[in-house]
């Protein structure tokens, strides 16, 4: 506790010294005054630098709030979240697809996600703003484009990550969503019918292109977006 206070005090002293002794061009921006290239800086503020560069698209205040949310979930206080940290959220634990959603945060084979990864995944759910729709396409596609949102949903179904949704995978996800309330046969026929309708190349599996085709009339932008305030 006192250490935190000391840290805050040292931080304030440090930035005062910098302000008084130099005239850095970046000092005007809110992030510029936190950065310290000379002495290695405070590692806790490192994620903000990356976010500014990667253009994840969140505003300054949104990033700050999401960072405090991240730290409040991080019970181990080691700068990363584990699966248990997510499962501690009751509303997520009772979500039938909770485990699949949690899985989406963790890259292949990893058990920890840092703030960078957290924001990357959350960025998929940013609403598409009007001024972004008309931007030219020479940069990388933003994470919250319609195509990337659909890709995210596709990955929720595609359990083995082979870029195809097989009948078994669909059955498993359906089973997660309905629990014990529907019999195997009924569920099987639902899965069969769904695949039959969407499958165009006859391989009894849904590829990403077929997935996009099935959902072309759905308002993905609205359904897969969270309304962030300010």
């Amino acid at each position, binding site marked *: *506790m006192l250490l935190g206070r000391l840290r*805050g005090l040292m931080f304030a002293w440090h930035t*005062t010294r910098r302000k008084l002794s130099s005239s850095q061009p970046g000092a005007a921006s809110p992030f510029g005054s936190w950065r310290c290239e000379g002495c290695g800086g405070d590692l806790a503020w490192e994620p903000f630098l990356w976010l500014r560069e990667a253009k994840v698209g969140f505003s300054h205040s949104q990033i700050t709030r999401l960072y405090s949310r991240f730290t409040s979930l991080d019970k181990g206080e080691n700068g990363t979240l584990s699966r248990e940290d997510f499962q501690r959220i009751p509303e997520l634990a009772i*979500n039938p697809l909770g485990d699949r959603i949690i899985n989406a945060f963790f890259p292949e084979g990893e058990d920890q996600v840092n703030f960078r990864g957290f924001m990357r995944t959350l960025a998929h759910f940013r609403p598409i703003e009007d001024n972004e729709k008309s931007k030219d396409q020479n940069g990388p596609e933003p994470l919250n484009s319609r195509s990337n949102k659909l890709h995210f949903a596709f990955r929720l179904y595609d359990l083995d990550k082979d870029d195809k949704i097989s009948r078994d995978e669909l059955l498993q996800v359906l089973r997660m969503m309905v629990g014990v309330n529907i019999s195997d046969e*009924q569920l099987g*026929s639902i899965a069969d*019918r769904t695949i039959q309708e969407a499958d165009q190349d006859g391989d009894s599996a849904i590829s990403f292109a077929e997935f996009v085709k099935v959902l072309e009339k759905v308002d993905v932008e609205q*359904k*897969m977006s969270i*309304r962030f305030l300010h």
Partner: protein
Amino acid sequence: SQGIIERDETPMEKEIARLHRVDFEFSDIFYFCRKGFEAIVEDEVTQRFSSEELVSWNLLTRTNVNFHYISLRLTVVWVIGVVVRYCFLLPLRFTLAAIGITSMIVGTTMVGQLPNSSVKNYLSEVVHLTCSRILVRALSGTIHYHNKENKPQKGGICVANHTSPIDAIILTNDGCYAMVGQVHGGLMGVIQRATVKACPHVWFERSEVKDRHLVTKRLREHVADKSKLPILIFPEGTCINNTSVMMFKKGSFEIGGTIYPVAIKYDPQFGDAFWNSSKYNIVSYLLRIMTSWAIVCNVWYMPPMVRKEGEDAVQFANRVRSAIAHQGGLTELPWDGGLKRAKVKDTFKEEQQKNYSKMLVRKGSIG
């Protein structure tokens, strides 16, 4: 304080509306997906187990989660504040607290030597009230009591929302109650043993706490005796951060007797009274409290309530909880405060699965 996101409260049925007359569509997962992410960004429950965020800073770094440097002047003011709080207020408060606790132990032990009589009860009341007032001063507490005509009477049960261990002192500042709790060791145990001689508090051994029937029986006996002081119970079972009232455990409402609800609301501008027991132990909590500016709170006594005909304990508990939440300006949550430490029950997930299954088979060509 404002939230991070604006939640979409459309129910599942409307959200998963059918484009065609089929049972399952790939887009069905969008609903669960979005709900899941909304919960990750901001959920109703876990935020209640950490201190409330303030809109404007009150010069305590502990309450500013997004602490960052603003200006030199502000930092200087803050440093002065730290010096005042730690070097001036803290020693004074600590001395007062020591005086208060010592006089409580000595006073109640002395009163406890007397034989049971009305004189003893009167003296016990005087000792408890005086020591309680010293302790409240030790925390620089400013308490406003409202509706004193509804103060809990003898033979009743007083229930209140729980934010911190000092809730008990806040209430005993204005009246005498019989405390209910577990026997502790150390200084707390000494206080408990001393006070129970003067006044019939109900302290349970650790082993007895597990036996719910024993607990209910002892409390019932206490309540049945109309000459005994009202019992003080916090039905949430754990400390919540004073922005909401969580589920009341039904045990207290099965005892019978009249319930006197009390709403306690702290003013967060002067100091954060919430005890985050997973983050701070009691000693560092008390240190934080004693180095805040002050503890300012409002206490509302509410009209007594009894269980209605045909109402079971759970419904009664919810009714009392609504009343307390409404009076104190807190939100109501149906979630269990025990979720601070325990996992949520699977039955909630099963309910969601059931609802979704109903949608699948209802409109489909199957079944």
